[in-house]
């Protein structure tokens, strides 16, 4: 099939989808192509922090200022996708108070409200903090649900005419000397092949930027840095807890809905597809974060995961087209003589909108039209999925609790609710279903409900492929997140899961 579009956006993370919304608000037709589902890359694999920018106030004031401005905008346009928790930067006896004072002064310089709290004031707000702390600085950090944020951007863009091709991979690019002419794509689920004629291309593939550029013989100086995180079984603190020292491993604990997320490490990588969180990274995070919040030592964890930050190296940053040190925007016409290609990469989740705005501005300038951005004033529609359990119980499907089977006992997902989202969104792929429901997000991480989900797909006669192969694939994928955190209760439960699948069901490699 041949498709035609004005602009082809490559990558379904926050940046790509943000660009799709920005362009469609400006009335520019666009098509977005993504080889997995929305948020398959770093957008779905971060600690969900709504940065106040304070973390960068000392080292990178420009990035810090970008963060606080975007922080304020997101609170206005997407309150349903985030929680205004506030955040504390705490100083422990081994930390340098001179750094704290520099931190306070730097926050003031970039317009980040920062309040110094005494030990007692801090403990009053967060009783689980290490009682040895010296002081804390309160800043407007928060938490964000990246999946709702991206989905709501996508829905709004789609309503305004943007189109999305998910699970579609770019196989080759047809170009002449100074221009990309068309792109060949293949639907990885259905096998259908597309030729996409487009006037402009935006490479918003994040850590995959070079994989894309390779198809046109280009390369960016990009480093990949793995950050590992661990999810707790319950929410530990009400506020984001940061360590008030220069950025290092294990310096943040972010509350997110019903859980908290420990972060992060930073390890250079070469391979963007295959990486794992190691037991030693997990031990390091626990050791460091339990200095701030001692109860972390005995806490139950449900999953470890890693994401890849694409870091643009100095040579690229010094390029005059780089707008900020936070992210890189590259006009390949100027850099490489390829007229209709733009790459945007780097940055943070909280600055996705700004990145989309600047990218769209550059594109409009290249097209030669004058439009202005409105994403900073137009609220995102939708209600988000980021709500607390008590709200969830209230909003539960009317049939749940009246004898209807509850497929996921951890997150209370009923069968009717699942069947509705399966039919409404025409979902068939297992990971897509898991992204759009709460299945497999809870304590057992899908140990029980995946079997049930496959059973329901059979009942509805929409199962695709061999269910036991899908089941095995899921169990292996799940394992990557479980394996680094197996001790205590989690290990006990894992013996149960193993006894089911390898024992009772005799699944073999």
């Amino acid at each position: 099939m041949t498709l035609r579009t004005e602009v082809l956006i490559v990558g379904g993370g926050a940046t790509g989808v943000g660009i799709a919304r920005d362009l469609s608000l400006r009335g520019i037709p666009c098509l977005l192509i993504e080889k997995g589902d929305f948020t398959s890359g770093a957008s779905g694999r971060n600690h969900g922090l709504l940065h106040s920018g304070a973390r960068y106030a000392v080292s990178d004031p420009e990035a810090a200022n970008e963060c606080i401005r975007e922080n304020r905008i997101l609170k206005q346009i997407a309150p349903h996708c985030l929680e205004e928790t506030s955040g504390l930067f705490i100083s422990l006896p081994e930390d340098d108070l001179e750094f704290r004072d520099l931190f306070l002064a730097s926050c003031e310089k970039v317009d980040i409200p920062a309040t110094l709290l005494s030990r007692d004031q801090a403990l009053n707000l967060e009783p689980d903090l290490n009682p040895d702390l010296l002081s804390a600085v309160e800043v407007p950090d928060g938490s964000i649900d990246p999946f709702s944020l991206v989905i709501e951007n996508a829905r709004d863009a789609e309503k305004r005419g943007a189109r999305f091709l998910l699970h579609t991979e770019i196989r080759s690019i047809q170009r002449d000397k100074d221009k990309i002419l068309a792109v060949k794509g293949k639907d990885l689920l259905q096998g259908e092949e597309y030729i996409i004629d487009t006037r402009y291309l935006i490479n918003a593939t994040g850590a995959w930027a070079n994989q894309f550029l390779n198809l046109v013989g280009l390369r960016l100086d990009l480093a990949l840095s793995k950050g590992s995180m661990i999810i707790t079984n319950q929410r530990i603190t009400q506020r984001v807890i940061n360590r008030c020292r220069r950025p290092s491993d294990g310096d943040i604990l972010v509350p997110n809905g019903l859980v908290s997320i420990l972060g992060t490490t930073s390890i250079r990588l070469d391979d963007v597809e295959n990486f794992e969180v190691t037991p030693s990274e997990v031990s390091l995070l626990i050791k460091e974060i339990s200095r701030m919040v001692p109860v972390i030592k005995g806490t139950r964890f449900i999953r470890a995961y890693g994401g890849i930050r694409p870091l643009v190296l100095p040579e690229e940053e010094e390029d005059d087209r780089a707008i900020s040190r936070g992210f890189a925007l590259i006009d390949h016409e100027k850099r490489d003589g390829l007229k209709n290609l733009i790459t945007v990469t780097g940055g943070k989740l909280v600055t996705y909108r700004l990145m989309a705005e600047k990218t769209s501005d550059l594109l409009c300038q290249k097209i030669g039209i004058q439009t202005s951005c409105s994403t900073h004033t137009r609220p995102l529609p939708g209600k988000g999925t980021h709500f607390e359990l008590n709200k969830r119980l209230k909003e539960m499907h009317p049939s749940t609790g009246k004898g209807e089977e509850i497929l996921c006992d951890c997150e209370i997902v009923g069968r009717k609710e699942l069947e509705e989202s399966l039919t409404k969104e025409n979902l068939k792929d297992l990971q897509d279903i898991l992204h759009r429901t709460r299945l497999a997000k809870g304590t057992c991480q899908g140990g029980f409900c995946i079997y049930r989900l496959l059973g329901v797909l059979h009942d509805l006669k929409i199962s695709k492929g061999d269910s036991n192969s899908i089941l095995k694939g899921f169990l292996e994928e799940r394992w990557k997140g479980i394996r680094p955190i197996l001790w205590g209760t989690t290990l006990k439960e894992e013996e149960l899961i193993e006894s089911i699948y390898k024992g009772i069901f005799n699944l073999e490699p």
Partner: protein
Amino acid sequence: MHYDLIIIGMGLSGLMAAKTAAEMGKKTLIIGKGTGSLCLFSNTIDVLGNLSEGMKMADGLQEWIKDHPEHPHSKIGWKRMNEALSSFISLFPSSYSFTCTDLANSLIPTGAGTYRPTYLIPSTMIAGTSLKNGKVLIVGFKGFKDFYAGYTADQLKCRGIVIPLSEFQGQEMIATAIARLMEKGPFREALGREVKKQMDGESHVGFPALLGIRDPLRVKKDLEEIIGAEVFEIPILPPSIPGMRIFRRFKEWLIQRGVTFLLGHSVLKADLNGKRCESIEVSHPPLSQSYSADRFILATGRFVGGGLKAHEEKIYEPLFNLPVVQPKSRADWFSNSFLSNHPVHQSGILVDSSFRAIDQQGKQLLDNVWIAGSILAGHDCIREKSREGIEISTGYWATRNAFQV
């Protein structure tokens, strides 16, 4: 109260130890926090799954023992294992008996539509071992979330149907509730008639393993009479109704034989005097009490049972603080693939030939405590399909050894 033998743990190995002691006329107490893996995973009696097709268990096991000298099976040997298995079989009346086919493993269908090899099979599952000779129908229940007839049937390449059960209007359908309902004659009759209506020349009809707790053979026979085909049970997600039947039979028999049966009690600590255990302190809030005995059997299972625990750095045995043989560091506990072997499963308590705990140098650690069941080192009972075989034979022989028979 003073006993000849106190057994800690009420899984299959503990129950088997209690039966063995009771038969020897010993004054016995068995104490359990819960019923362990028995009521979760046990459906049939696995001894060793990985045998080539048609190979007799006796031959297969002897070969296995040659290659696995540290395995619990190897400490006992086939002849003595068989004696323990016979003792287990003898507990069950003809209405729910365990048998094997041709002294070898049989393949039974599971809730994921796979087949699994197993050794002793209860009478309600036997018809499932000969599916290849017939046309099969799989029956599921609408609203029961732990079994999907379509999924299972698709894998087994046969037909699946789902029957609504009107008895569950407005309440959640759980395994034990369905199993109890199966014991009611009119319910079975209505269910049988509904299945019969939907038959299409099938010779075998498979149900999830929920055909009653007290008298499952009666349920099976009644259904067979109405439907006009052979009925068999399929093992499903926990809890295991067939495991509960085993537990129930042991409990009834042990209490009848005068064994003190303390279910729902946990052991707080063991009182040691040098290398002897004198007594245990038992908690049953708000009370706690001490029980003494000449001999003890530790049959507390692995992680699910609570016999082994793990913190971030180490696996330990919480009651006697016995050394646990284990991989060097946590990074080595599990391998990269879920479905492959994990070294952590080989961890556990080392024992001598009498089943008393020893350290890595072979030194005996406690004089009057014997170890039985899955807490032992040197096996991977989940993958090997050896769980019940280990539990039954070590429960039996640890007790016999304790009284030097």
